[in-house]
């Protein structure tokens, strides 16, 4: 199944665009006066237009990292939106409650990044969920586990690439919620696996992955091609 991510109707109206612009200015104005913010604005000025041949360009610097997070949140939100449209057969009340909650959290994350990035945001991505059997509990929860662990890994791996403390804090506010999701999904699959040795190592450390590794996995669920070539690497 291939489906286009929903773009809220409000996003298409001029009034909303104006509000979005104000929100973006407020967001970026948090960092007004810092050299880094100015550098980022400048550095990204050439990255606005996605290049179809090379894929959708995430951009560079902190904006690139925020777009990277936005791309992953789009993927997660689309997944749970589909999951909750028609639950797998035999879904229990608790499974439905938690999957609905997680869907809402991922939508909140996606829309937050969309508004925060404003005209620096990448477009809506097209997903490819043809590998997922949405009627199968094992397929749905297995995919959810993979997405949540991937999300935790991605945020943990991207933290060091962020230069602005305020952006780092926002990423931190989201990653612990993704970790809560990951733990819960794992417990639904097998109670007690919330932080087993496939997620947390002998030093008590959770997963982390750099963007190229994360995007390689994500690409398996995306029709849109992502170009991460301008992301910072250290």
């Amino acid at each position, binding site marked *: 199944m291939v489906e286009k991510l929903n773009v809220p109707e409000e996003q298409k109206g001029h009034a909303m665009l104006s509000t979005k612009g104000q929100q973006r200015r407020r967001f970026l104005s948090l960092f007004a006066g810092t050299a880094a913010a100015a550098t980022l604005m400048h550095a990204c000025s050439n990255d606005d237009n996605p290049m179809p041949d090379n894929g959708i360009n995430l951009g560079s610097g902190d904006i690139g990292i925020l777009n990277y997070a936005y791309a992953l949140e789009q993927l997660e939100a689309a997944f749970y939106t589909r999951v909750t449209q028609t639950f797998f057969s035999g879904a229990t009340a608790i499974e439905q409650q938690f999957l609905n909650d997680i869907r809402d959290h991922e939508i909140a994350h996606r829309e937050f990044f969309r508004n925060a990035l404003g005209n620096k945001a990448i477009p809506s991505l097209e997903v490819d969920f043809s590998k997922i059997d949405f009627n199968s509990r094992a397929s749905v929860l297995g995919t959810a586990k993979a997405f949540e662990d991937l999300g935790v890994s991605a945020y943990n791996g991207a933290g060091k690439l962020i230069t602005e403390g305020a952006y780092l804090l926002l990423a931190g506010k989201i990653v612990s919620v993704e970790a809560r999701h990951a*733990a819960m999904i794992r417990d639904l699959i097998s109670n007690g696996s919330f932080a087993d040795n496939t997620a947390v190592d002998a030093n008590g450390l959770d997963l982390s992955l750099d963007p190229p590794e994360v995007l390689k996995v994500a690409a398996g669920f995306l029709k849109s091609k992502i170009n991460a070539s301008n992301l910072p690497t250290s």
Partner: protein
Amino acid sequence: MNIEHIITNLEQQDPELHERLSNRRSAIKGLAGIGGKLALAAIPFALGSLFKKAYGQSTGAIVEVLQFALTLEYLEAEFYTLGAAAPGLVPAGPPTGAIATIRDHENAHVTLLKNTITTLGATPVAKPVFDFTAGNGSGNGPFKGVFSNYPLFLAVAQTFEDTGVRAYKGQAGALISSNEVLTAALKIHSAEARHAAHIRYMRRNLLSNTAIKPWITGKDTAGIGDAVQASYNGEDLTTQAEINIIGINGTGVSAAAASEAFDEPLDKAAVLAIVDPFIV
């Protein structure tokens, strides 16, 4: 860590970098060359020494954060160690397995933080004496019986985990100058969030209370009450970077979901006030 990249960035931000470093250019080249051979944990220390010379700063701020984190990890490690060892407290089966898993992680965090602090050239703070009744040493605080009353034990565990997540989050910005230390802290932070989610799930099942969820709704204590309210105050935020999350862009995101979707930080003073009754 790409040291040359850091130096390049510094040069862009600070045109006088090389003047500040003066004759230390050779030291930079030396560092870049041996970076691959140094133990990763030693690199922040080596860089810290360099920056201290250039800017008169030290790794002191980072060490301070790590000492603070170590105190919290001592608290959690001893709490779970005592809880797991208390006869008849934790039911056999999955509960025992989960508490052992978390205990082992917290002990590992203690070891890791002590080693990192030592690597940075400082002496790890000593483990405090704890009173897990929250009685400041009286042994008669509001959580009296914490190691004989299983629901109370889980309630205190939930508070420690949720507070720990908030405490690490509040300190991330202070670690931004060190890729290695920041990444380690983030990896501890999300492990604590996994613990928090599971402890909440255990409480939900134990109490048959479907209002208890793995995530924090508003500033709700999940039924624990006023004694732990300070650990949850501020979690009810529904705007992020001045963007209202409730119903954002015409979606059905409720106030509850808007608060659940983002965990909030706590600053050091707030955390210290929360744990003060537990430290003799």
